[in-house]
């Protein structure tokens, strides 16, 4: 019934979660949608949890996605995917980078890191595609490409064509030279492929 799309992007302060959501918003706006983007970031700059909400459609009212109403979850870290799984509507999919970032409270032995967050998401009945964005970025020779890999990963799970998102991503790098544009194009396609490969293997 609702014509508003709800995209939830999560991770840890400093991972580029907000930038990724910003680019998704740009793509939606370029296609003529109204859009609102909001973060629950707190003091995220210092290693805290970040969840970035993007809502777009003909007219967006509340900027926040209610629990159980996200259409897709893009997680930059495995345990964060598990933390935010409940935000998905029934039947919606989680796309998760399966790298693990262990916080000091776990190192100090005060809390445990879940043994297999991806399996826990599945056990809770949510479809999840996990991939290693970190390694993909490093194989392309630059850890900072991870953000573009993540955007590629979500590209086929949006209500608009992947190429519209790709165009927005590449526009950001245009001024920095053809080489960087090309690298990001490859990172984007690698992210896309990682998700479709993992999904068809599952």
């Amino acid at each position: 019934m609702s014509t508003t799309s709800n995209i939830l992007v999560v991770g840890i302060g400093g991972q580029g979660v907000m930038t990724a959501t910003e680019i998704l918003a740009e793509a939606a706006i370029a296609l003529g949608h109204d859009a609102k983007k909001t973060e629950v970031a707190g003091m995220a700059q210092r290693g805290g949890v970040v969840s970035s909400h993007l809502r777009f459609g003909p007219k967006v009212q509340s900027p926040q996605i209610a629990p159980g109403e996200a259409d897709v979850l893009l997680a930059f870290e495995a345990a964060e995917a598990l933390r935010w799984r409940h935000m998905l509507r029934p039947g919606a999919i989680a796309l998760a980078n399966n790298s693990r970032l262990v916080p000091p409270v776990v190192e100090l032995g005060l809390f445990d890191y879940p043994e297999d967050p991806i399996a826990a998401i599945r056990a809770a009945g949510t479809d999840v595609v996990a991939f290693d964005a970190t390694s993909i970025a490093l194989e392309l020779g630059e850890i900072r490409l991870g953000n573009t890999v993540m955007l590629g990963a979500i590209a086929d799970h949006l209500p608009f064509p992947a190429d519209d998102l790709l165009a927005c991503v590449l526009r950001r790098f245009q001024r920095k030279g053809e080489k960087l544009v090309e690298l990001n194009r490859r990172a984007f396609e690698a992210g896309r492929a990682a998700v479709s490969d993992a999904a068809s293997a599952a």
Partner: protein
Amino acid sequence: MAAVMPAPAASRLFLSGNEAVARAVWEAGTRVAAAYPGTPATEMLEVLSTYPDIYAEWSVNEKVSLEVAIGAAYAGSRAFCCMKHVGMNVASDALMTLTLTGVVGGLVIAIADDVGLSSSQNEQDSRFWGRFAHVPVFEPADSQEAYAMTLAAYELSEQFQVPVILRMTTRINHVKGLVVVGERASRAGAGFKKDPARFVMVPGNAGRRIPLMFKRDGELRSAAEQSPLNYIVAGSDRRVGFITSGPAFEHVREAFPEAPVLKLGFSCPLPFDKCRELAALVEQVVVVEEVEPLVETELKARGIAVVGKEILPLQGELSPNVLKPAIARLLGEPVPDIPPAPAKVFPRPPTMCVACPHLGVYYTLSQVRNLNISGDIGCYTLGAGHPWQAMDTCVSMGASMGIALGMDKGRGESDKDKRIVAVIGDSTFLHMGMQGLLDMVYNKANVTVLLLDNRAVGMTGGQDNPGNGRDIYGEDAPRVDFAKLCAALGVKQERIHTVNPYELPVLFKTVRDEVKVPDVSVIITDQPCVLIKDYHKLKPYEVHDDKCTGCGNCLDVGCPAIHVTRRGKQTKASGREVDLAFVRIESSVCTGCGLCLQPCAPDAIQHYVPVSPIKLMTKGGCAV
């Protein structure tokens, strides 16, 4: 920040509430803008500093920033000032008399309430200031409104010669939405015209201004009744009508699209007739407001029947999924399904940065026994957490000084032999701490002050301040000399020490010696915040696994670059069993501060030698 070309008029931009306000302040022809940083308000001034033809400044505290804006408004220029909610507690002394003099040039004060406490010490409701100070309050609900209301606020401010409060919340300041922007109107300052009866608030003059303020209240209420910022959205479901403002309006519209709604944009003074108009349309009225029942209480006092905080929370953000069940219960309808519960996952509290100079301070404080530590607000408040647990109080900016003095003078039997330490950051010290230090000196306290000079307002993103000798534009500015400042306040020269917080033995000895001296001592740490350009990275370290004994001493430093690889147990000669934690350093993020190797007995931590680029990559855990 360097000036940039502002986007042309009629552009449709994706702006946060803060960016939208900044744009409107600039378009309004404002000539002076001042603020002290504070989440979620900080970006308004940061953005304004990138616009041409406007003077922007970081002031040392909110009271000074408001006074700067008042001066400019007296001189006939449009002026702007912004702050986080608690900032107005500091600035309110000026506000409460400013309301009597009024302004000449328009003055808008944006106050950002941190509803939901994403990064604040309390959750106060700034709409009270409008009532307390008899000034109008505007409440935007999204970025477009934040922009439009800022422009409207300048018009109202000049029409009634009154400062206008723009009440924002985190959910406005930091939410991005589409805004269509306009042209800048250039406005010259009218010039200051001497008028002692108006601008010199001695009792006689002030007494004559008070009736004018009350008269203005009535006129402003009529203006609110007429204002297009207060409007009724028609709706076919007349069982409940809503009176709401700010982000709560969006939540109401989302949750109850068919209900009649009175949207308050110009919410103080409250337009009672408009409220009655809505009440006449519906069976019952619910007031939906964040945080306090302000509108609700005023309406009830006027005999207008409404429901409010009886069914809605007094704390935190409202949202459609808070509103829907509350209204269902009110109507005796089945309550919608409770949303799914989140999985139990470890918390991720904010951490200090890798190589933060505060790490050395808290490691040291955690190793000295018998201290009561009066803390303050900034990144260093994280010292209250693990692993240091070396801060015992935190109340308001600068409070570490007075509270330490009070703890000293008010000692009980149990803390007769305790040493009192106060910990304060450079920006906090200049904001409100200096006066407390003077009070300690004057009243002969027995307190050791740690003044953490990292040359930045670290907590809010590393803004410049008088402690680092740069202004808001990044240009050179006179730099405060903290040692001289403390001496000028009366701290004895021999009780002032400047130490490098990365040299643990020196810091430890200085702290241990000074806490024994029954006098006011100040220990200044002098290394820059790792987020600012004054910081220089050094060669990273790594752990030699064959040498690591698992003692875990390095973990007590609390650097987030140190990770446990495996745990174990060991039985000591005494028969006592101890836990072991073997570690590695994430060399790709280590910047070589050298803190962790100082407590490492077996010398297991040494400079990192890259084997091949691949090794660094597969060490894993890198942020994507």
